[in-house]
C-alpha cells in the first residue's frame, strides 16, 4: 500500500478479474427480487459476502444486516485493491476511492450536526478510502464540527472546510460544508494526471462522471424550480458544461435536455432523455446515467487490458452491485413487487 515503486497492473488486474467473475448476474438478481430480507441475507451468506454477514449477524438483523454487510464488504474489497497496488497505479486508484473519504467526512459532519449516536454514525461509514482507522476513530470522537475540521487539518479537506466554516456559522445549514468537501474531492480527482493512453482513457471517464453529476444537479434544479444559484453546485473539470452555461441552462428544462441530447453523450442517453420529456420522470434519467457510466466502465476495461482501467471498471461494477442489492432489500422492506424492484436495478 504505497505510492512508491513501479506500477504492478498485471497482478492487480488478474485478481480483480477473478473477483469480477463472482459478481451477481441477471440470474441472481432475479432470484433476489423474489426473496424476503431474511432470505436475501441467507443468500448473501453463501456468496462472497459470507464473512461479513456472519460477523454482523449477531448484532443486526433484517435489512440493516444486509446494508451493513454490503458496506463492510465494499470497504474490505476496495481496501484490498489499494493494498495490492503500487506506484502510479496506487495513485490512480486512490484518486477515485477518495470519494469514500468525502462520503465519510460528510456523514460524520451530519452526525455531529444532528447529535447522532457515535455507533449510529459508525455503521454508516464506508472505510474504503485513504483514511486509516485512527483518523476515523478521531473523527467519530469529535463532538463539534470545529473538532471534525481540526482532525482533517492535514488532509485536502482541511483548508476548504475551514473556509466554509465561517459561512456555516452564519447560516447554520450544512450545504457550504458539504460543497467544500465535494469540491476538494473533485479538484484533486482530475489534477496532474499522467499522459499515457490508458490514463487518458481514465481521465475521460472521470470527466464523463463529472459531466453526468453536473447534468443531474442541473436537471434537479431545473425541475424543482427552486430559487438556488446553480453555479454554486457546479463541479469543475467536466467537458460538457462551464459555470455560466450551467447556470443559464438550469433555468430552462427544455433547453437543458436539448443541450445534453446534442452532446457527445446524446447517443447513450437519448432514450432516457425522450422519456424525461414525455413522462417527466427524473428517476429513469438517473438510472440511464448510471447505466451509461457502467457501460462506459465496461468498455473501458477491455480497451487496455493491462492498465488501471479494468480495475476502475471492477470498482464501478462492484459499487453498482451493492447498490442493486440494497435497492432490492429496501424495496422488499417497503413492500414493492418484484417487477417494480427490477425496474429500480441498473444491470448491463
Amino acid at each position, binding site marked *: 500500500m504505497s505510492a512508491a515503486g513501479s506500477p504492478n497492473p*498485471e497482478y*492487480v488486474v488478474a*485478481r480483480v478479474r477473478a473477483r469480477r467473475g463472482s459478481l451477481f448476474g441477471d440470474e441472481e438478481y432475479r432470484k433476489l427480487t423474489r426473496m424476503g430480507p431474511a432470505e436475501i441475507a441467507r443468500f448473501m451468506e453463501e456468496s462472497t459476502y459470507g464473512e461479513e454477514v456472519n460477523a454482523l449477524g449477531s448484532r443486526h438483523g433484517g435489512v440493516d444486516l444486509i446494508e451493513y454487510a454490503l458496506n463492510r464488504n465494499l470497504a474490505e474489497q476496495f481496501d484490498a485493491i489499494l493494498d495490492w497496488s503500487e506506484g502510479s497505479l496506487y495513485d490512480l486508484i486512490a484518486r477515485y476511492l477518495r470519494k469514500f473519504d468525502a462520503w465519510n467526512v460528510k456523514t460524520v459532519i451530519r452526525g455531529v450536526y444532528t447529535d447522532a449516536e457515535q455507533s449510529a454514525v459508525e455503521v454508516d461509514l464506508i472505510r474504503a478510502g485513504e483514511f486509516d482507522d485512527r483518523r476515523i476513530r478521531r473523527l467519530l470522537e469529535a463532538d463539534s464540527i470545529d473538532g471534525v475540521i481540526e482532525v482533517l487539518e492535514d488532509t485536502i479537506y482541511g483548508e476548504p472546510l475551514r473556509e466554509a466554516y465561517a459561512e456555516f456559522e452564519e447560516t447554520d445549514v450544512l450545504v457550504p460544508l458539504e460543497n467544500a468537501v465535494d469540491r476538494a474531492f473533485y479538484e484533486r480527482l482530475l489534477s496532474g494526471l499522467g499522459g499515457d493512453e490508458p490514463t487518458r482513457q481514465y481521465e475521460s471517464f472521470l470527466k464523463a462522471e463529472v459531466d453526468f453529476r453536473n447534468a443531474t444537479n442541473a436537471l434537479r434544479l431545473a425541475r424543482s424550480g427552486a430559487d438556488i444559484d446553480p453555479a454554486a453546485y457546479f463541479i469543475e473539470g467536466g467537458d460538457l458544461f462551464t459555470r455560466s452555461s450551467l447556470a443559464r441552462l438550469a433555468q430552462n428544462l427544455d433547453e437543458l435536455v436539448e443541450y445534453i441530447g446534442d452532446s457527445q453523450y446524446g447517443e447513450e442517453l437519448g432514450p432516457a432523455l425522450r422519456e424525461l420529456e414525455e413522462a417527466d420522470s427524473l428517476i429513469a434519467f438517473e438510472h440511464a446515467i448510471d447505466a451509461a457510466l457502467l457501460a462506459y466502465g465496461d468498455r473501458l476495461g477491455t480497451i487496455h487490458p*493491462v492498465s488501471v482501467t479494468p480495475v476502475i471498471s471492477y470498482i464501478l461494477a462492484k459499487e453498482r452491485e451493492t447498490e442493486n442489492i440494497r435497492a432490492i432489500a429496501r424495496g422488499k422492506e417497503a413492500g414493492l413487487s418484484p417487477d417494480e424492484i427490477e425496474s429500480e436495478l441498473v444491470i448491463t
Partner: protein
Amino acid sequence: MFEATNELGNLVLSTGGTLTDPNAAAALAVGLAALGAGYAERGIGSAAVGAMAEDDDLFVNGLILTVLPETIVILALVVVFIV
C-alpha cells in the same frame, strides 16, 4: 541505450573483433533471448500469482503460462548448435 550498444559494438569491432567470432555472437544471441524471456515472464508471473491468490485451481495453468516464454531461449539455443 541503443547508442551505447552501437558504440560498444564499434569499440569491440575496432579493438579485436570479438563479435565477429561466431561463438561469441551465438552466446550473445542466447543471452539476449533469455533477457527477453525474463522480461515477458515478469508480467505473466505476477498476473499468474494474482490469479492463483484468488483461485488455487489456477496453479497449473498459471505455471504453464508463466514458463511459456522460456521456449524463446530454447529456440535461441539452436543457434549454438548451428554455428
